[in-house]
């Protein structure tokens, strides 16, 4: 069994032989992550309309389906249409607290089988139940932490009431976002992630951050592009104008 000390010791011994190498500079990073984050937010408060346009363009290029509604009240209607077109009956959504929407009150009353992710500290039984529901659901509805314009990417942070599999197991993923989510570049994402890390109060509770750029895809058989190999076949993004 190699110990940490032995492993690192042998690296140090070899590194000692390389003195005199040119001095490689690491990439400059924001000295004050929190301030840089605030600056990004101020920029995006002005530039979000352009970012939204770019997001839409890139998202559609990678086969995403973009929707735009005036307010949160219109979101269930969009999801209903998506479900009906696909003859889907079962909908799984993030918990209403992080999502800002309780689909049980709308779609649930219209005959759809709506389940929502548990909030609070789930026990073993709750976890198993959720897993079964997630595996069965045809449509998964999530919020979005950031929408990255440059690449048409949805960034989702897992956490309480925000399971990671809602955007993975159902064949159709529907993500709901607003202007406060919009970012322009990967560089800005880097600033945001640095800031989250630097400030434990801002830090998210969950273990996983997923960058989702279009549907699940493969080209492993004769380089033929095929969607929905393991994850969703379709990804929809609903932009909500009002807060």
């Amino acid at each position, binding site marked *: *069994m*190699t110990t*940490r000390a*032995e*492993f*690192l010791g042998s*690296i*140090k011994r*070899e*590194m000692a*032989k*390389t003195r005199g*190498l*040119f001095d*490689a500079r*690491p*990439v400059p*990073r924001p000295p004050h992550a929190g301030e840089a984050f605030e600056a990004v937010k101020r920029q995006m408060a002005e530039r979000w309309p352009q970012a939204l346009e770019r997001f839409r363009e*890139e998202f559609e290029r990678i086969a995403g389906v973009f929707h735009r509604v005036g307010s949160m009240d219109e979101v269930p209607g969009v999801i209903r249409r998506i479900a009906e077109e696909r003859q889907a009956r079962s909908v799984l959504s993030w918990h209403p607290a992080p999502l800002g929407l309780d689909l049980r009150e709308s779609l649930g009353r219209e005959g759809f089988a709506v389940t929502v*992710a*548990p909030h*609070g*500290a*789930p026990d073993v039984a709750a976890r198993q139940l*959720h897993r079964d529901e997630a595996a069965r659901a045809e449509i998964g509805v999530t919020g979005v932490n950031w929408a990255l314009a440059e*690449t048409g*990417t949805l960034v989702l942070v*897992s*956490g*309480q009431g925000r*399971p*990671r*599999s809602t955007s*993975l197991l159902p064949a159709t993923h529907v993500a709901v976002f607003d202007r406060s989510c919009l970012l322009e570049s*990967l560089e800005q994402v*880097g600033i945001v*992630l640095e800031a989250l*890390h630097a400030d434990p109060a801002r830090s998210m*509770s*969950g*273990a*996983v951050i*997923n*960058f*989702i*750029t*279009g549907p699940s*895809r*493969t*080209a*492993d*058989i*004769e*380089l*033929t592009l*095929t969607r*929905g*190999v*393991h*994850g969703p076949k379709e990804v929809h993004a609903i932009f909500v104008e009002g807060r």
Partner: protein
Amino acid sequence: MSDAQLRTPFPERAHSALNDAHLQEALTIATTKFIGLRKEAFAGYPDGEALRDRARAIKESTLQGLDTHLERLADNIERLGGHVHWAATGDEARDIILRLCRDRGVRMAVKSKSMATEEIELNEALEAAGVKPVETDLGEYIIQLAHEKPSHIIAPAIHKTKGQVADLFSKELGGRFEADPEVLTAVARKELRQKFLEADMGITGANFAVAETGTIVLVTNEGNGRMVTSLPRIHVAVMGMEKVIPTMTDLMVFLAILARSATGQKLSSYTTLVRGPRQPGEVEGPEELHLILMDNGRTRQIAGTLREALYCLRCGACLNVCPVYRQIGGHAYGYTYPGPIGILLTAMLKGTGSVKDLAHASSLCGACKDVCPVRIDIPRMLIELREHIDRERVAPWAERMVFGLARRAMASPSLFRLGAKIGRVAQVPFVRDGRLRGLPLLFGKWTRTRDLPPVAARSFSERWKELERP
């Protein structure tokens, strides 16, 4: 690659690849497509070139402080509730995983595509220990069913036709499936979905690990990486130690160029940042997270001639442009890592003796260096490798003797002139249509596939002297 296959010498392996018409066609189509996609991606991305320079600088600066970054990574993984294991060799990495399987009663492990686990031939070891490994990347799944090895770093099954895949699925999974990628993908989805839900352990590699935050980063297109890290109760990541990077800012630089280099995408469909096992309040995620940091010959090269190969991101771009890879494909190389970078990585992991033939499987044209996202100088290292192979007497004696004589002749003007005179006379029986063809003995292999210009009737210096005359 099995020992039996490796006992076939490289020239024969290459030769049979060249005679495989179907493989030739598949290779041409695939590599040409990848080259086009990459070119397009960078053409539309003016920042790309500067980002490649930055990425290279990050790799070098990280390597200069590798011990510190690894310590920080380990501390942060542990702080988040994960476990870190240190594996000096591939054997040790395998043993760690087998012990975890034994201790925790693991019967089935689902895997997402990982060159690191190919490197340590983990699947064979798991099977021998009674654990069923299931590859879940579609390409890897196909070749696992076919009992083959990947032929390309990012497209492991490019050597198979849809007809072959349909036959394979029909035979192995029971049923009759149409030779349609859409149908076959749906079959794999259904089959593997069940495996994701049943498996006890998920095994992945790591594209990067961010030291400062303790984050393991996986880049996939299919979503299997997400499944494998979310559904089973244990997640094990096997990572070559050189994959550590310092910060999230650095990660963004690599993400911006990795997918563009590999598949021409701006980003792959899924980039998954894993920090620790399931956190309090989460309904999903593994109970345990294990990161295995693997050396397996890498440390030896920190101060070695192959140092720069430690920058490699495993994007596969150098394979697609390599005139040798494009002709012979991945299997002929005979080891886990094919292509130009593969020769260097094989030398790193298995010693220079293992690449005495492969070191010459390059035209040194430099296309690999041009497309490498971190601008690894592969041709320079190949030349150094060849020199090393010669110096250490790894090369065959006849080859060394010929080159030894050539060096002497080149270094002495009188010997050189004498050699040219002898050559002019000796070549006569072998010159046809103004070219040297069909040389005898030792040299026969050289002229079997190419011809040479004959030694000129008058040498350059003789002609120069005439010109100097007033």
